[in-house]
């Protein structure tokens, strides 16, 4: 576990993730606590795609894959899942911290009932959506055994949910959907059902990675793509 910690959370990742979140908080100021959710969740998902993508691919990039491949499949997969969980927990922690940074930028009164309840929403939402996007990114990169293919596909999915295209999707398929609730939470409340649905998809993809980690890294060479 300690080694997986050092492998999946190197200093440069810690630095760029914090800088990214901080810059986002600076360039996209919010006015109400509920607005923080609409900003922090997609930002964190974007970060998750880039942050988690190489937890297995680093073995390819750093020329260790031919040795890593020889390890028993179960233990290889266990290491990849551990690395994933370490990065995932770190991203959720970022949400826990940066929510308050947004609040501080708003000069709001801290610890009001609304702020605390929206904080709870924020943790729950980011837990589910970050898990989906992180899992999508890892799965795509591992499937193609190519960092750029995996990143481009995952980022394309993210863009779909953050552009007008999402309006053509049924609400249940819109991962960042909110419902109008004029009486509470400043007018909108997140849909949790669709987020939970995507979380389940994320867990399934993570399980499927067992098959991807098991494959020979030289599969493409044998297929003549040398």
């Amino acid at each position: 576990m300690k080694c997986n910690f050092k492998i999946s959370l190197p200093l440069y990742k810690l630095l760029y993730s914090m800088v990214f979140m901080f810059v986002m908080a600076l360039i996209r100021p919010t006015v109400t606590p509920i607005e923080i959710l609409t900003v922090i969740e997609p930002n964190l998902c974007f970060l998750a795609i880039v942050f988690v993508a190489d937890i297995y691919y680093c073995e390819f990039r750093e020329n260790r894959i031919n040795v890593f491949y020889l390890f028993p499949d179960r233990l290889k997969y266990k290491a990849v899942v551990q690395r994933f969980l370490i990065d995932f927990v770190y991203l959720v922690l970022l949400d826990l911290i940066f929510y308050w940074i947004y609040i501080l930028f708003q000069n709001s009164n801290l610890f009001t009932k609304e702020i605390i309840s929206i904080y709870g929403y924020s943790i729950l939402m980011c837990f589910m959506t970050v898990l989906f996007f992180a899992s999508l990114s890892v799965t795509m990169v591992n499937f193609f055994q190519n960092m750029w293919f995996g990143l481009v596909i995952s980022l394309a999915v993210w863009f779909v949910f953050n552009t007008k295209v999402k309006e053509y999707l049924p609400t249940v398929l819109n991962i960042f959907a909110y419902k109008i609730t004029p009486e509470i939470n400043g007018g909108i409340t997140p849909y949790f059902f669709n987020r939970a649905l995507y979380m389940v998809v994320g867990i399934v993809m993570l399980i499927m990675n067992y098959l991807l980690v098991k494959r020979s890294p030289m599969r493409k060479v044998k297929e003549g793509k040398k």
Partner: protein
Amino acid sequence: MIEIRNLTVQYKNGVKGLDNVNLTISNGIYGLLGENGAGKSTLMNVLTTLLTPTRGTVIVNSVNVIPQNYTKVKKMIGYLPQELGMYPNLTVRETLEYVAALSGVNPIKKKEKIEYLLERTSLKEHEKKKNKQLSGGMKRRVGLAQALITDPQLLIVDEPTTGLDPEERIRIRNLLVDFGRDRSVLFSSHVVEDLASTCNDLCILKKGKKIYDGTIQHLICEADNHVFSCMLSSEEEFLRVQERYKITGKNYSNEGIDIRLVSRSVPDVAGIEFQYVKPTLEDAYIYKSSSEKFEEI
């Protein structure tokens, strides 16, 4: 013991990485020699189950290397590829602990095994250094230690001495000799000198085909009476000789240009006198791998 029968690996683009290769490798260090693209890496990739052959059989210690047995085969193998990246933020000890855990080494025996390997590879004093702080030779020794952590029956090392200074090269070679006493070691290299000082038997591959398989001594004997030297007075003379013969050595001295060459018969260049010399393994390798060219010349 490794038995390789009619092994062929053909890529989809039609190129044959290996073409009908037959080999028997017993305990001890077995050398694998050949130019770049000869098929050495392909053979090692088949043995490490990274590649599935198109045709032929490979049997490692009575286990047939087929996809159903890959798990079993992988357990028997320790592998040090030519370029092995290390986890930059882990220390030497952590690297070995991590590899041991990933290999499923018994946690009780793990500590003892790591201590033994750190001692044997002279890495004990560097165990707390991070991999990114290590020299090339130290990294290679860590690579060798990680390959041996499971006590493999077959150790495969791919050009382990490339880019190392002479002292480190000798150290790595000696380690291989020590570790090769009770297991099979497949030692791939194009540094002929390394093979000469570690192996008894070797195989030469060329364009995917086996062109020699036997003892080093026999290979040298084959080249006996086919290696010559002479002293040339000018570059023009050298060019005349080079046009017709395979030069294996060239040295400028006060007397002229001292050259060494291989030839099927006594070289015949007007005005130049050639003398027989005792072949080295390098001469023998060049002679063997150029044999078919002699016909053309």
